[in-house]
């Protein structure tokens, strides 16, 4: 799976991207941590800013109250008039513009009556002295704020705050009052107050949104008093003035808590204490607070994935374009080249490595083309050589269609284009035929050239030298003379004397031939071997003469047959050759040879032929008055010639001859058409003179069939109703003196004339 460049590079890219992702993830993790604390701090800072602004107001209120108290104290000690107090009050509130109003309230027990100066800011921002509060109806010493502030004040910390309260009398607003004490020596003689309208702060708090769903609580913890809550879950409950118990999420130790769980959400509580002891608590939903971070991180990861995909795609495309495609082009071209197409222009310009490879490919195909052309030339030469060589061997069969007394079949199949084996046969005169098989040492062209020389020398000498031993001595000497490369020839040769039924055999270091006698089997014949031809000059050659009668056969071959190997390197062997010959012994000589060849090929099936395969089969039919040959239409002429020759020899009356010929033709035709209709077989014919009678005898080993049993045809029929079947035998019957059929393991038909 990872064996291709493509997959390997993709693996590298994947690993690179993986590493990058890990690094980025680690970075993000730390970034996130930092960013979280930054965001928390940021929110805290924002709330802090808000609180600081409120604190500023508080400080101003306190200073306002203190300043007024100080001025009130000065005037009290110099027993200032009411006008002065009113003036001071007005001026103070003109200067401190954030307060709603305020005034100086003397203790009644000190002054002996209700004595206060109160000023407030009207809608036109003018400071108005309001005298309604000196009445008994209001009776300020009984008001909660008065009691509260008076009780809380100490000289050291000369400031106190009332609880927030709703002012019905004056401004109709929610407010809180800061107060300061006026002292005469150490005795509190009165207080000053500054009213701080809380509505605008409450409004700011209500609008305070750190995140869309954050909410705030403004409360006085010390006095357990809620000023305002923007908790959306408590929207319908009026909290103002209630205790903190009414706030479900509130805890005393809120400052130490990181998160609160409220309505299935996590909130971060920010607690800020104001200078006057009030506190502002802002609860921010955790998910909203970090929403932006998550968005940022998500965006980062998304872009990381997109970038990875883009990089992968680009890399893959680049890889495809620069490596895979050129490789495929080269593979395609290599395939075409292997199929023999060499006229290919390879067009790769980038990348340089492949361009280089492609040009190498180009060079290679050019070289292959050149070599191929050269090889084609050589092959053409070899084919021509093969054709010259095979045409130099007699290769038309039957070679002597006009000879009935013998027949030859031979074949040579070279292992390479040209071979070192050869066979030859030729008539030395009317009554002598020479035939031979030879094997030149070595193979291929040198052996073939040597073979041509040897063949020519053998033919030249044997045609003119009658004496066999001398002829072979001369042949050997001649071959030695021209043999510079120390090649040699083994040869088996025979000269058949057709008149005297003698066969002279010469063996020059060759494989022993097989002889089959009439009605016998093929057997190896023992022959003394002479020296191989061409090895050493001036040698004597022995010739063995044997009787060779009609019906005898002799088989010559080369070791290409017996040394053919099967796939386990077992030799074909001489035994197998003999067995196959005998299995086919009743066939025509051509079919015997073809079956041997087929058997050798089947034996060495799938293995390249390693040596030339050559064989020659000579069959002798003789010129006796008895003749036997394959019953076939082709052989009719031979039988006819034999009949003619023998009628001549027997000096048969010429008037009778056409009748004998007719009888022969009709019966011969019957035999090969009916007795051997499905298999090939032989027919034996003899002719003899017995006193005045001529006896023609036919013998065949085909289907038993008595032609005489067939009824004579009706010769009186009209021509359109006639058939010629049976007419032949009828004519023979009419033309002969006597005709007789016998069965003796063969059909025997005897015709007497």
């Amino acid at each position, binding site marked *: 799976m990872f064996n291709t460049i493509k997959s390997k590079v993709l693996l590298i890219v994947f690993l690179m991207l993986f590493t990058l992702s890990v690094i980025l993830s680690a970075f993000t993790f730390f970034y996130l941590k930092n960013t979280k604390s930054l965001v928390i701090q940021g929110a805290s800072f924002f709330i802090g800013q808000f609180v600081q602004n409120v604190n500023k107001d508080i400080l101003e209120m306190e200073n306002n109250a203190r300043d007024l108290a100080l001025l009130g104290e000065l005037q009290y000690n110099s027993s200032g008039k009411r006008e002065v107090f009113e003036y001071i009050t007005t001026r103070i509130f003109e200067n401190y513009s954030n307060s709603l109003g305020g005034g100086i309230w003397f203790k009644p027990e000190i002054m002996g009556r209700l004595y206060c100066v109160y000023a407030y800011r009207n809608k036109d921002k003018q400071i108005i002295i309001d005298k309604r509060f000196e009445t008994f109806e209001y009776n300020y010493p009984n008001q909660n704020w008065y009691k509260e502030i008076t009780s809380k004040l100490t000289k050291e910390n000369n400031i106190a705050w009332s609880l927030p309260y709703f002012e019905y009398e004056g401004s109709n607003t929610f407010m809180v009052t800061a107060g300061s004490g006026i002292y005469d020596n150490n005795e509190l003689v009165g207080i000053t107050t500054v009213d701080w309208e809380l509505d605008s702060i409450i409004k700011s708090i209500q609008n305070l949104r750190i995140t869309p769903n954050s909410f705030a609580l403004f409360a006085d913890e010390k006095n357990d008093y809620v000023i305002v809550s923007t908790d959306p879950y408590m929207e319908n409950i009026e909290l103002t003035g209630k205790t903190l118990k009414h706030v479900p999420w509130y805890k005393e130790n809120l400052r130490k808590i990181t998160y609160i769980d409220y309505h299935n959400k996590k909130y971060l509580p920010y607690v800020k204490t104001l200078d006057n002891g009030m506190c502002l608590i802002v609860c921010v939903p955790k998910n909203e607070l970090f929403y932006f971070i998550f968005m940022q991180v998500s965006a980062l990861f998304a872009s990381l994935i997109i970038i990875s995909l883009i990089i992968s795609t680009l890399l893959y495309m680049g890889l495809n374009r620069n490596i895979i495609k050129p490789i495929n082009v080269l593979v395609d071209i290599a395939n075409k080249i292997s199929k023999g197409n060499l006229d290919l222009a390879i067009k790769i310009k980038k990348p340089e490595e492949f361009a280089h490879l492609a040009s190498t490919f180009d060079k290679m195909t050019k070289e292959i083309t050149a070599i191929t052309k050269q090889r084609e030339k050589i092959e053409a030469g070899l084919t021509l050589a093969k054709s010259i060589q095979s045409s130099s061997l007699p290769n038309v069969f039957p070679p002597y269609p006009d000879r009935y007394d013998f027949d030859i079949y031979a074949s040579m199949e070279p292992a390479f284009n040209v071979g070192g084996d050869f066979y030859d046969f030729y008539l030395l005169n009317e009554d002598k035929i020479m035939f031979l098989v030879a094997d030149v040492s070595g193979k291929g062209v040198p052996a073939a050239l040597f073979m041509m020389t040897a063949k020519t020398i053998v033919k030249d000498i044997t045609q003119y030298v009658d004496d066999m031993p001398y002829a072979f001595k001369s042949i050997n000497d001649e071959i030695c003379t021209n043999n510079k490369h120390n090649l040699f020839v083994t040869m088996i040769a025979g000269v058949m004397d057709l008149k005297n039924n003698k066969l002279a055999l010469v063996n020059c270091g060759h494989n022993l031939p097989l002889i089959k006698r009439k009605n016998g089997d093929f057997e190896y014949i023992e022959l003394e071997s002479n020296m191989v031809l061409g090895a050493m000059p001036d040698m004597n050659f022995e010739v063995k003469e044997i009787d060779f009668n009609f019906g005898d056969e002799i088989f010559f071959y080369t070791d290409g047959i017996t040394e053919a190997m099967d796939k386990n390197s077992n030799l074909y062997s001489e035994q197998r050759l003999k067995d196959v010959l005998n299995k086919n012994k009743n066939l025509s000589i051509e079919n015997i040879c073809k079956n041997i060849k087929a058997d050798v090929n089947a034996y060495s099936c799938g293995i390249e032929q390693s040596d030339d395969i050559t064989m020659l089969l000579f069959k002798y039919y003789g010129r006796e008055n008895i003749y036997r040959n394959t019953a076939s*239409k082709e052989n*009719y*002429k031979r039988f006819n010639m034999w009949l003619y020759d023998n009628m001549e020899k027997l000096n048969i009356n010429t008037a009778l001859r*056409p009748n004998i*010929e*007719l009888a022969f*033709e*009709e019966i011969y*035709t019957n035999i090969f058409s009916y007795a051997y209709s499905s298999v090939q077989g032989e027919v034996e014919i003899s002719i003899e003179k017995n006193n005045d009678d001529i006896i023609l005898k036919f013998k065949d080993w085909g289907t038993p069939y008595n032609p005489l049993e067939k009824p004579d045809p009706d*010769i*009186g*029929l*009209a*021509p*359109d109703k*006639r058939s*010629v079947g049976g*007419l*032949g035998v*009828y*004519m023979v019957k*009419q*033309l002969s003196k006597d005709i007789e059929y016998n069965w003796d393991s063969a059909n025997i038909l005897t015709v007497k004339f």
Partner: protein
Amino acid sequence: MEIKLRKQDEDTLEVVASGKIDIDSAVEYGTKISDAVEDNEIKNVILDFAQITYISSMGLRVILELHQKMSNLGTMKIKNASEQILNIFKMTGFSKFLNIV
């Protein structure tokens, strides 16, 4: 066997052959004549047997076929047949229908 074909006139073909009409030559003899008859729209055939030495049953088969073919087209005559041949024709009953002159 040597076979010579000669047109005597528009419709008549003369066949002069020499040798044996046997298993070797009979088919060739018959085919040559048959083809010539068809190609030239021959109506009459004259077979000159002067040089014919021998005829076997294969030869007779061809003669019978030719005879049947020519009966439909016109005529077929055999002339100059030897004693030997005439004997064969007689023996086989061919002389009864062949036009031998």
